[in-house]
């Protein structure tokens, strides 16, 4: 039996109230008032699709060995690197084995489901036993555009496997169509779209029903057989029309979370699927349909194993774990939409030495230190001579991952001197449960909320952006561990 063995989701902490966008930009395009309800999830200043995919991947890996997957497929239309495999960064960050298959799926908003289908087929072929699929997007609309209102950031991840599946893969149907509703040339930063009426009437209204019908016919099913139907379409009126045309009970249609997150691009159907799995019951049939340059429809049936899956912080948890982004200007600066000044201090050059990064690949991207085989002391960065003064053993180290360990704050500060686009720069010394200590940046927190002794957990984040050379440098930061009711 092949299908989904585990899942995870990630929604960034910050939410921008769309009214704030309208207050600032409504003068330019008053029609955007139609989209100004609710809030959109905004990646923190140190997040991008890769870091969000890693966060979803860690969420998905909860309870599983990091070395289990035989590959990772990453879907996004906003990849930080055009050349340099983004999935490879994710694989290292998640501490996967070296002998894994990896690929970036991009170009279409349906690339998330296409990556998932490719993983299902890889597992189905018998070549692979477990494949990790991550989908994540961070699309930008120009200031004053409807896209700026509608788009939100999010990610989901799935462990596709040939055993212990919680959702069995039962079938699929795909359509490829060079239907251009949204597009972005390879040197463009912002999304462009054609007329809404065209997108609704010819795009959604034609392609989604055609794909669903294809799947139903292929598998001899009726739409009523499904307990949940997932499709990505942010037009409220069009969804009503589609529900009617498909003959689906609106109660069974998964919420698109437009008012809470926004349109997550390639991640949209994937995050919705993760959300659907959170309250799915054995026997439920789930239909997922993506849209963008065509459609993929995938059909799953929930198994008894879903009851055994370890609890995780899924979509519901992430929806509740939020903080308001206080200003629209901060959003513009974080996304590098308008020029800003961080002072001459911020202009000092910080070159990236790739050969050095290669040597410390696991330490930098995987947050992997060393543990002394003689005395058991974990240490970061990895050492050759044990840091324990009572031990001092040389070359007796084994790899030790800190990425999945929690820690306690020993000391901290909020530094206004560091050139940052999110001052103050918060950091401190942290002590890991089980041993080990380091001084890390903190993120997703406010200075006022911190205390010595508070629990923090590592998160993969952007460490530095070299605008001059187009380099995104990553490392890990500490995020206060929060329990959300």
């Amino acid at each position, binding site marked *: 039996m092949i299908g989904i063995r585990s899942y995870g989701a990630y929604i960034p902490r910050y939410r921008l109230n769309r009214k704030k966008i309208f207050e600032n930009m409504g003068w330019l395009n008053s029609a955007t008032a139609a989209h100004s309800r609710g809030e959109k999830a905004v990646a923190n200043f140190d997040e991008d699709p890769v870091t969000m995919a890693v966060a979803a991947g860690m969420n998905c890996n909860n309870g599983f060995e990091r070395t289990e997957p035989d590959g990772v497929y990453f879907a996004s239309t906003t990849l930080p690197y055009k050349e340099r495999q983004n999935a490879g960064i994710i694989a290292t960050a998640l501490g996967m084995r070296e002998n894994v298959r990896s690929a970036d799926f991009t170009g279409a908003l349906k690339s998330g489901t296409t990556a998932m289908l490719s993983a299902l087929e890889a597992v189905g072929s018998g070549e692979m036993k477990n494949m990790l699929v991550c989908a994540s997007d961070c699309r930008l609309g120009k200031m004053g555009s409807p896209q700026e209102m509608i788009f939100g950031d999010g990610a989901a991840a799935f462990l596709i496997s040939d055993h212990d599946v919680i959702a069995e893969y039962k079938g699929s149907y795909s359509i490829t169509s060079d239907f251009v509703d949204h597009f972005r040339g390879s040197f463009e930063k912002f999304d462009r779209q054609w007329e809404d009426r065209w997108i609704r009437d010819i795009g959604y209204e034609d392609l989604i029903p055609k794909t669903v019908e294809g799947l139903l016919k292929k598998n001899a099913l009726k739409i009523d057989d499904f307990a949940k139907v997932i499709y990505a379409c942010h037009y409220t009126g069009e969804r009503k029309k589609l529900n009617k045309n498909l003959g689906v009970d609106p109660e069974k249609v998964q919420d698109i979370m437009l008012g809470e997150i926004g349109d997550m691009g390639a991640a949209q159907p994937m995050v919705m699927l993760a959300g659907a799995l959170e309250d799915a019951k054995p026997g439920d049939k789930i239909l997922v349909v993506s849209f963008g340059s065509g459609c993929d429809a995938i059909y799953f049936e929930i198994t008894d194993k879903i009851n055994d899956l370890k609890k995780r912080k899924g979509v519901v948890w992430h929806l509740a774990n939020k903080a308001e982004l206080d200003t629209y200007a901060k959003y513009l600066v974080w996304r590098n939409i308008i020029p800003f000044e961080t002072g001459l201090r911020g202009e*000092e050059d910080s070159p990236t030495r790739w050969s050095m990064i290669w040597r410390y690949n696991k330490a930098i991207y995987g947050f992997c230190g060393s543990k002394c085989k003689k005395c058991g*002391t974990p240490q970061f*960065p990895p050492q050759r001579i044990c*840091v324990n003064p009572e031990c001092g053993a040389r070359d007796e180290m084994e790899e030790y991952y800190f990425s999945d360990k929690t820690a306690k704050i*020993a*000391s*901290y500060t909020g530094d206004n001197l560091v050139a940052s686009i999110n001052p103050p720069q918060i950091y401190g010394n942290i*002590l890991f449960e089980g041993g080990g200590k380091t001084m890390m*940046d903190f993120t997703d927190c406010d200075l006022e909320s911190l205390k010595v002794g508070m629990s923090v957990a590592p998160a993969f984040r952007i460490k530095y952006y070299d605008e001059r050379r187009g380099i995104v440098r990553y*490392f890990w930061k500490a995020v206060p561990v929060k329990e959300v009711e």
Partner: protein
Amino acid sequence: MAKGIKDKVAVLGMGCSKFGERWDMESEDLMIEAFTECIADAGIEKKQLEACWLGSYFIEINIGKAGIPAAVALKLPFLPVTRVENKCASGSEAFRGACYAVASGACDFALAIGAEKLKDAGYGGLPAIAVDGQMEVMLHADWTAPGAFAQLASAYQAKYGMSMEQLKEAMAYVSWKSHQNGVMNPRAHLRRDVTKEQIMKSPMIAYPLGLFDCCGVSDGAAAAIVTTPEIARSLKKDEEIVYVKSLQIACSSGEEAMYTDWDGTSVMSTTLAAQRAYDEAGIKNPREEISMMEVHDCFSITELVTMEDLQISQRGKAPEDILNGFYDLKGGGVPCQTDGGLKCFGHPIGASGLRMIYEMYSQLLQRWPEERSVKDPRLALTHNLGGIPNRNVVSLVILGK
């Protein structure tokens, strides 16, 4: 069996430039200023010098690498000039080199000089140049000096169960006391008389350190000429000779940064170097025996924990001693930062260690007006710290007559 440096080297002369925003001067000019005073004080001629050690740190915006810039600036006649650098303790490192040269018998007269030109950075604070190698940039927090030291305060406050307001009160007193001393010193960088309230309310730099918890970033130079005790006695009267009683340096082993025993409320290197220095100088009870100190008060909280690391205040008791005026110039305790310290005299990195020694030397020789003099000093200590609390180098010098 080695017996240490005690009484093997004498300080023959010293000089110190005015510290501050020396917009009209290069490092070379500042070196000339310090050296001119120094050699006149020593009473020897330049050609008698046999070796020189130069301390400097941010060479990227300063003199560049090697010892050559000092040799060229001072026209040292093809002397062996060695440039040393040990972070903010570079000045003490230059002094140590010169002392070792004399103590070894390799030369009779050696020069130590430190110079730094920080005000050409174009912005306040220390230059944002990667100083701990590329891996530090990749693998640790994006820190600055105030942020790294500010953590001493959050850890200290938590450990001793104080409110941050209580701790900030003691920290403000530290800065206030240095301003009181700095006001009287014509060569100090910052000479404003500020109130404790102004200090407490100054703009936040790195929580909980405000602007007045941070030392001045300055231009300046300082120099020393050292010789053997025998030669010193042949050139000067006994009461005009200052001897080196101890030179100790301790560098972090990585334990503080990576191992869990250190709690972040002290500086391990200071604690260890202090014990070694007291042993070397034969000091049993530093609180009673040390007459005065110049410590590395890069931040008010650094001075506060240093009082404990040096065993002058007991652990957890520095705030009390500070608020009781124990470290005031005329407080009847152990005067600390008699010239205003890094806080007010300023901190041109490569020169700072030598500037501390200059102040202690001058105090031991009773050269200052009564209003800023320590009465009957016997033993003086300087503490020069480079790096940050979890990874640093600490240099201690004890001088005496």
